[in-house]
């Protein structure tokens, strides 16, 4: 629809610019200005007040020697691997729903999958905190009731860890060694509503007749997935990969609320975003926090660019 205009017409239509000004102003003030300010202040020793001192690259030099920051990148790397693994159930469930022959059931399952979305994120988070509670939580009760606990204790004794003990409830969020496993279990069975819905959108182009033809040719369920379904949702899988990387690296709200500003016992849950938050709002080192933020932003930007380069997403 957009068409190039003659000069006169541009002059007559100048008022159109007024339409974009409000959005532009909002974006400049609340998105561009903070980003610029973060880069600017990352070169300062600044505790949030009027006084600040230019210290060149000192914040960055400090960051590269900051053992907490370095280990937080290792932690976030582990979380990234967990989250890659956690993509599998969503793909599985999307394929299964698509293979269900009745349209009515397909719609019903879609609707049921959306239901968890109506619970505010924060509530989901606190309910999980409750599930992981050592004394009252569902997880420990299931582990006790199924006898899985004695297996854990046996493994514990066998390897000489001191993590699981008989008659002592497992403190998922209070024992340093268990923080990462707890973050892994978190969200079981790891079905992302949004993920399932975009995979289903990709699968839509496969008609029932394709399945029927495959069945007549005697192709088994696993090969069907490999040769029919997977190629069709590859675009969506790559897309969620990009979203997952950006999301995992940038988020820290979960760690902040599930554990605390210090990443929980032993700081095992510390991620780069949380360390930035901690430095700014706990220690008051705003300049250093800005530097951490800038480093993190460049890591995310780099990974996004690599992704866009090697992973083509066709519209």
């Amino acid at each position, binding site marked *: *629809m*957009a*068409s190039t*205009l003659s000069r006169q017409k*541009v002059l007559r239509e100048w008022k159109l*610019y007024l*339409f*974009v000004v*409000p*959005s532009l102003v*909002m*974006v400049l003030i*609340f*998105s561009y*200005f*903070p980003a610029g*300010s*973060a880069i600017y*202040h990352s070169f300062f020793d600044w505790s*949030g007040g009027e006084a600040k001192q230019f210290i060149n690259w000192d914040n960055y030099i400090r960051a590269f020697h900051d053992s907490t920051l370095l280990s937080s990148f290792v932690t976030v790397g582990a979380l990234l691997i967990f989250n890659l693994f956690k993509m599998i*159930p969503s793909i599985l469930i999307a394929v*299964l729903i698509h*293979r*269900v*022959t009745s349209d009515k059931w397909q719609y019903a399952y879609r*609707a*049921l999958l*959306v*239901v*968890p*979305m*109506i*619970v*505010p994120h*924060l*509530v989901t988070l606190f*309910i*999980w905190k409750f*599930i992981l509670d050592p004394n*009252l939580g569902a997880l420990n009760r299931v582990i006790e009731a199924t006898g899985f606990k004695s297996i854990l204790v046996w493994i514990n004794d066998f390897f000489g860890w001191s993590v699981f003990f008989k008659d002592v409830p497992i403190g998922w969020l209070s024992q340093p060694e268990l923080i990462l496993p707890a973050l892994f279990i978190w969200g079981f*069975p790891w*079905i992302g509503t*949004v993920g399932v*819905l*975009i995979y289903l*959108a990709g699968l839509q182009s496969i008609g029932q007749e394709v399945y029927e033809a495959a*069945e007549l040719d005697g192709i088994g369920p696993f090969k069907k997935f490999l040769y029919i379904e997977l190629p069709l949702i590859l675009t969506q899988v790559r*897309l969620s990969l990009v*979203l997952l990387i*950006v999301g995992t690296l*940038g988020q820290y*709200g979960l760690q902040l*609320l599930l554990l605390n500003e210090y990443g929980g016992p032993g700081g095992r849950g510390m991620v780069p975003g949380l360390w*930035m938050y901690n430095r*700014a709002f706990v220690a008051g080192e*705003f300049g250093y926090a*800005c530097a951490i*933020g800038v480093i993190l*932003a460049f890591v995310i*930007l780099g990974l996004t660019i690599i992704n866009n380069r090697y992973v083509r997403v066709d519209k």
Partner: protein
Amino acid sequence: MSAAENTIAKLHRKVDWPKHLIIWFFILIELFPLYMMFQVSFKDNASFIQQPWLPLPPTEWQWGNWLFAIKLVGPYLANTLFVAVTATISSLFLAILGAYFFSRHKMPFSGLLWALFLFLMLLPTVTNIVPLFMLLKSMSLLNTLLALILVGVAGGQVFNIFVLRHFLEDLPKDLFEAAEMDGASHFQQIINIVIPMSGPIIGTLAILSFLNAWNDFLLPLIILRDKELFTLGVGLIYLDGEYVKPWGKIMASYFLAAIPLILIFLFTMRLFVRGLSAGAIKG
């Protein structure tokens, strides 16, 4: 239906049940927290510790939990509703204006302005929170709901304009030309053509904006100090911080926090299902 097709259909039905079983297994686990939230919300701590899994008979339900929750969460709900509704409406209004600018005519510099918006899609927002806090402080907007609204509106612009622009460009050009012949101003064209013709897409974007505003807790946690101004996020975080936890009351509060979303869900399920897939294509 021919005999062959009939056999195939029968074959399908026969092998379908394992799929249903697996799907139900996952869905039930997925819905389990909801069930717990609902049934625990009617228990006091004693009956909860005695029997955590099964619901109490309705005659023993502790409605007091819900009264407590309404008293506690009610004001937070009102604040959150105010922020979410105001932010959603203003964000979409500005985005429609912006998208109209980009899709109507190709004006000088519109390419540059477009790039300015698109670049933000790539820019990670995680860095922003610290300078944003200082910016709001210098604007003396700390501890106000206005700050949440402004940041929410700004944050939604890029994605909303992006989606709306592509939608508006596909609208028939004749409509706008005819309106122009009749002397309609640009603003009148937006009111009379753009908004009526893009109902579903605006609805979808509105749901996404609303969800975003509803789920936000980091910014409110950092900038809000007065209890009267707390949004749900901050309120629930403080509730979680109590030492002796009255689980029934807590769960009732959680449930109450979800009720506005449940209502929206019931009325706009189709938009919801579609909107979420649209939102995921953002990247």
